[in-house]
C-alpha cells in the first residue's frame, strides 16, 4: 500500500473510533436517565405509591444514597424510578412510605404541608397540617405548583429499621397520604428540602443534587 493509502486507512479507523466514543458518551452517559412509573388507576381514583429509603439497593450505583422508589402497592414491587406519570387536572392520592430517620429541616417553613387539597396530610392515619421540623425526614415537593409535603422520620430508637432498599412494610416506617390536583400537561420537577444527603456539605450534595435519588420529574399527560 502506498504511504498515502496507509494514512487514509489510519484516518478512517481513527474517525470510526472517535464516532464510537462519541456514541458511547451520548448513549451511556448523557442520555442515561432514570425511568418512569405511571400512577395506578383504581375505582377509588388515581393513586401513586412511593417509598423513601435510607439507602438504595446494595447493587445500586450509589448504595449509600437516600432515594425515592416507586412502590407497587399490590405486588410489593419496588422500582428505582423517579419520573412519575400522572394524568392532567386530576385529583391524585399519593401515599409515601418513609423508612428513613429524621434529619431535620434547614428551613422549618417546609414543616407545614402546602398545596395539598385542604392543606392537610394524613400521617399514620391522623390528619394534620404540619409536623415538627426537627422530625422531618424528607419533603416531597413540586415547587412549580406550590406543593410541599413533609415526611416524618422513623424514630431513632426504632426496633426494626430498614437499611437498603427494597423495604417491605414489616420494617418500621411512617405513612403519609395526601391528595393534590395535578396541573395541566407538562414536565414538572420534584425535589426534597430536608438536607438528607449524608456526607455532603449542609446535606445538600449527592442524592439531593441528582435526578434519580432525591430529585425527579412529574410528567403530567
Amino acid at each position: 500500500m502506498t504511504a498515502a493509502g496507509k494514512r487514509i486507512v489510519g484516518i478512517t479507523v481513527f474517525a470510526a473510533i472517535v464516532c464510537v466514543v462519541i456514541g458511547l458518551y451520548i448513549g451511556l452517559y448523557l442520555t442515561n436517565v432514570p425511568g418512569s412509573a405511571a400512577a395506578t388507576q383504581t375505582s377509588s381514583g388515581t393513586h401513586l405509591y412511593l417509598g423513601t429509603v435510607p439507602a438504595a439497593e446494595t447493587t445500586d450505583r450509589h448504595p449509600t444514597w437516600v432515594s425515592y422508589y416507586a412502590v407497587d402497592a399490590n405486588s410489593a414491587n419496588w422500582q428505582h424510578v423517579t419520573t412519575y406519570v400522572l394524568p392532567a387536572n386530576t385529583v391524585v392520592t399519593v401515599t409515601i412510605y418513609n423508612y428513613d430517620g429524621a434529619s431535620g429541616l434547614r428551613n422549618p417553613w417546609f414543616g407545614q404541608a402546602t398545596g395539598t387539597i385542604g392543606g392537610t396530610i394524613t400521617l399514620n392515619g391522623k390528619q394534620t397540617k404540619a409536623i415538627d421540623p426537627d422530625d422531618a425526614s424528607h419533603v416531597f415537593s413540586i415547587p412549580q405548583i406550590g406543593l410541599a409535603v413533609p415526611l416524618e422520620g422513623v424514630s431513632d430508637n426504632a426496633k426494626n429499621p430498614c437499611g437498603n432498599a427494597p423495604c417491605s412494610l414489616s420494617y418500621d416506617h411512617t405513612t403519609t397520604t395526601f391528595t393534590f390536583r395535578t396541573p395541566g400537561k407538562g414536565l414538572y420537577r420534584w425535589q426534597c428540602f430536608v438536607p438528607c444527603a449524608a456526607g455532603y456539605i449542609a446535606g445538600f450534595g449527592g442524592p439531593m443534587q441528582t435526578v434519580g435519588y432525591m430529585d425527579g420529574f412529574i410528567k403530567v399527560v
Partner: protein
Amino acid sequence: MSAIAVSTTAPRSGWRKLIGFNMLTGILLGIVGWYVGHWIGDRITGANLAYFSAEAGENDIAIMLGYFLGVVGFLVGLGFANYPIKRLLGHPPSLAEHESEEEGVFRYFTLSTDHKVVAKQYMVGIGLFFFVAGLNAMLIRTELLQPDVHVFGANQYLTLVGMHGSMMMGTMTSGLLGPFATFLVPLMIGSRRMAFSRLSAFTFWVLMAGEVILLTTIFFGGFQTGWTGYQPLGAQGTAGYDAYICFFALVGLSMTLFGFNLIVTITTMRARGMTWSRLPIFVWGAYTTAWLMMLAAPMLIAALLMAAMDRTVQTAFYIPGQGGSAYLFQNLFWVFGHPEVYILALPGMGIVLELMPVFSRKPLWGYRLAVAGMLGIAFLSWFVWQHHLFVSGINADLRPFYMLSTELISLPTGFIFLCALGTLWRARIRLTVPMLFCLAWIFNFLWGGISGVFNSDVPSDVTTHGSFFVMAHFHYTIMGGLVFAFFAAIYYWVPKMYGYNLNERLGKIHFWTLFIAFNSTFAPLFALGFMGMPRRVVTYNPAWQGLNVWVSISAYVIGLSMLVFLFNVVWSLLIKREPAAINPWHAKSIEWTLPTPVPVQDFDRIPVFDADPYPYGVEPAPARAPTLAPAGGSA
C-alpha cells in the same frame, strides 16, 4: 547548539520503540499511579472516617490522591523525572533530552525539548480538546432545542455546560501561545529555544493530563457548577468536582510555568539587534500575556487548593457558617479570572496585528501605540475583577471604581483597534484566508467590546448580569476574538510549521460559514439575554423557543464549518501534501526566511536584527526570497 545535534544513543526501531520513556509508558504509569493514590487515600481515611467524612461512598481524599499520583506517574513515564533526578545527584546541566531524539512521528509522543516539536504537540493537543469542548457546545444546544428537559438528564446537562466552559477556558488559554508562541517566539527573537525547554514540554504534557482528568468527571457524577466553580456549591458537589479542581489547578500550573518561561525567554534571549522596539507585535502580545499568566494563575491554584482542602481535610475557607465566606472564592477566582480573559484576548490581538501588515503590504500602523495598548490592558486587567460581582452585594461602594476601571480598559483596547484599522488605510489589502479571519476579528471584537460597555455599566448590568447577554458578550470576545485569531494563525503559519499548504478554497468555505454562523448564533443571544433568559438553565420560557431553535441550528452550522476545517487539515496535511513555498505570503518577518520545514537548529548563525519586522513599502524593496539556501532543510 551542539546539544541538539549530538545523539548518544542509537534510536530503537520497530515495536521496541514503545519500551522507554514515552506517552504509552506515561499512560500506563498514570493508571498505576491513580490506583496507588486511591489505595493510599482509602487507607488514610479508613483510620479516621468520621473526620474525613468518607461515608458517602465517595472518598475525596482517595480521589484527589489518585489524580495526583496519576499525573506524577504519567509525567515519570514520559521521562520528566530523569533530568531532575540526575541534577539531584550532581550531574551538570543540559538543555535537551536524549531520549527524545527520535525522528519521525514517534517523537511527538515523547518528551521533546525542541520548541518546534512542542509547538506541534500543542497544536494537536489543543485542537483535540478544542473539538471535544466544541462537541459539548453542540450537545448543549441540542438540549436547548426545547424549553423542557428532553434529551439529556438535568445533571448531565449541567456537566455538559461545565465541561464546555472549563475545557474551552483551560484549553484555549494556551490555544494561541501554546502552538504559536512556542514555535515563533524563539524564531522571532532569534533565540532558537525557550529558556527552559523541558519546562516548555512540561507545560504541554501537564495540560494534557489535566484535560483527561476533566473528562473523567463523568465517572464521578459530573459537576454542577459551570466553569466558575462557585463555592459553596462546589463544596457540596460529588466527586466529579474533584476532577474540576484538579483540572483547573493543572491548567493553572501549566499557565504559570508557560508564562514564566516566555518572560525569561523574551527578556534574556533576544538576539543582537532585537531591541524592545523591534520586537514583533505578536511577541509583545505573548510577553504581556505571559505576565498575566505567571502572576494570575497562581491565585487560581491557591483558590482551588483551598476548595480542595474544604472538601478533603475539612477546612472552612468557603463555608459561611463556619467562618468562611463564599465571597472569598468569588474574589480569588475573579482576581485570576479577569486577567484570564485578557490572557485569552491579548495573543489574538498580537496575531491580528502581526498579520495585518503582511496582507495590507504596509508597516504596522502605530507600533508603539499597539504596545502601549497591550501593556495598558495587561496592567488594567488587574483592577476590574469585581465587575463580575456588581450585584453580589460585595463592596457595593466600590462599584463606581470598578465601573470606571472597566470602562478605562476600553482605551488600550481602542489603541489595538486603531492600529489594526490604521494599518488598513491606503493599504493594498489581500483577502487571503488568514486576512479574512483577521478582518472578522475586528468585526466580532467590536460587538464584544460594545456589549461589554453594557456589562460594565452597573445600572445596565443589573439586567444583563448572569443572563444570556453576558454569555453572548464573552463569546463575541473569546470565540469571535480568540478563535478567529486562532484560525488566522493556523492558516497563516501552518505551511511553515508543517511544510504543506492548506487548501485555500476549503479555507474560504470554512471562513464564510463560520463567520456567518457565528454571528447568527450569538447575536440572537443578546436578544434572549435582554428578554430575561438566565445562563446555564436547562429549561426556559416557552416563548423563547423560536430564538433558541434558531441559535441551535446556527450552532450546528458552526459545527459543520468546523468539520470543513477538519477535512481541510486532514486532506491537505495528511493526504494531498502539497509542499509549501518558503514564503508563500511574501511576508518579511524572519520565520519566513527559514527553510521549510525549519531545521532543528533553526538558524546556523544567531541572527542579527537591524530593523523591525515590518519593512513594507520601503524603497528600494529589500531582497526577499533567494537568500535562503535550504541548508538544514532535511534535518
